[in-house]
């Protein structure tokens, strides 16, 4: 099974046998890959059917809301906290970032970049909220309540005193080098504090 590009990057970076918390783990694709590399991996997922699929594959996943439930996890209980395509759905992404770096020694965050040229073009030329392949749902039904750009995220990390260890950018499934805030549809950051 081939992983989504942001998940593939994260899976490659995580050292085997680590303890990992996957927040917004969906169907558990990353968790399964990490389990195969010997990781002790736990998940949080809000959608009950996704949780059921995870549990029926033997994954340890808790149905819950990351905005609320992360608070129960002990400090530095994990080597890595992973937040893939979920930051922009959080009630308070800034607090979520704090929580990630509290429960994990390192954190991975991936999100769709709202400053991608296609998004900018849609807004500039059509004057409408963009519906693109990275943001495929209309404004009134999207779960993305806090759109964010690469630039914004770097700024948030700086404000939060989080160190950006590495960053990766993608357009579709191809890596992007340079001018990321224009050219990247997706970004992946590795953070520490």
């Amino acid at each position, binding site marked *: 099974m081939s992983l989504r590009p942001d998940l593939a990057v994260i899976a490659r970076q995580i050292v085997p046998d680590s303890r990992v918390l996957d927040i917004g783990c969906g169907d558990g694709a990353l968790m399964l890959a990490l389990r195969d590399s010997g990781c*002790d991996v*736990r998940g949080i997922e809000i959608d*009950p059917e996704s*949780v*059921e699929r*995870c*549990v*029926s*594959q*033997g*994954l*340890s*996943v*808790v*149905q*819950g809301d990351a905005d609320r*439930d992360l608070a*129960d*996890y*002990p400090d530095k*209980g994990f080597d890595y906290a992973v937040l893939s395509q979920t930051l922009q759905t959080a009630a308070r992404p800034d607090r979520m970032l704090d929580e990630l770096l509290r429960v994990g020694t390192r954190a991975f965050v991936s999100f769709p970049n709202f400053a991608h040229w296609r998004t900018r073009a849609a807004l500039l030329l059509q004057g409408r909220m963009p519906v693109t392949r990275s943001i495929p749902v209309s404004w009134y039904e999207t779960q993305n309540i806090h759109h964010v750009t690469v630039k914004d995220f770097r700024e948030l990390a700086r404000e939060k005193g989080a160190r950006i260890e590495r960053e990766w950018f993608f357009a579709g499934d191809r890596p992007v080098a340079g001018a990321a805030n224009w050219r990247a549809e997706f970004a992946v950051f590795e953070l520490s504090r």
Partner: protein
Amino acid sequence: MNAHSQTLALTAPLPLDGGGELARVEVAYETYGALKADRSNAILLCHALTGDQYVASPHPITGKPGWWERMVGPGKPIDTDRFHVICANVIGSCMGSTGPASEAPDGRPHAMRFPVITIRDMVRAHVGLLDALGIERLHAVVGGSMGGMQALSLAANWPERAERVLVIASTSRHSAQNIAFHELGRQAIMADPRWNGGDYYGGEAPDNGLAVARMAAHITYLSEEALTEKFGRNLQDRDAKTFGFDADFQVESYLRYQGSGFTRRFDANSYLYITRAMDYFDLAEEHGGRLADAFTGTQARFCLVSFDSDWLYPTSESRHVVHALNAAGAAVSFVELSAPHGHDSFLLDVPALDRVIGGFLG
């Protein structure tokens, strides 16, 4: 299915949480499926308040199929082709394990001389059984409702005994509302003149009181939606109300049937003792007041399941346990399943539950 019925006499008296000990304890149990030579494939199934060891074999009194036949058997989610399933009647009950109806050393039934027991006392008897069977480590302990309390108690007090802990529609403590409903049931039994201070063995049992207790409890096992769906305001075998107190409504007739059927198979004193044990259950209290401390250092994997229509042990109770397990760093899964039947959903046809159980047991 091929079931194996046995009764084990514990060799030592059983120490009790309330002080003292219970001598000459017998534990009646059923087993299904073969135990591997290395004894690694045993699953302990814990039954609910009025359940028994006949999980997948006909009930000896009612002749009805086992209470979890849909879940336990060859090729089923709890697969007896792979697992050796053990289900023991809890102490305090009345299906072969020592309880108030059992003979005391003086040759007469214990009746109310039977000590008040706890969920942990029940589990202590189960552990005695596992010791006798030479099963050091269970593949899993599984239970719904009061069975889930036993599973949690085993995980907290004998953490090395189970690799997996599956808790369905259960709680770590009885709420005021839970205790209130149980007290209603107990008072109904004790208000029946035939109860006679619990000394009714050999004579007429307090069936009226026990039936009312069961009727009240049965309401708590079903969702309002399920009752409405099943009965609505339909009348029972009549076209009009009788302007009397006969069972005009189908729901009344159903409850009366449930109540009277129950008295054929259950002992009223057992109902008092077991409901008391459930009311006393508070796993956090046993461990210094903080639930997470009950699970410190556990290596077991946990799975909790709740049902959205269960108002007896609602999802918030399962979440409370999940939060504690997270705080303790335990490997835990949790899912709230959607099912219309209320608390009884764990016994009924909920395909998602089958998948979760099968997947979790591996």
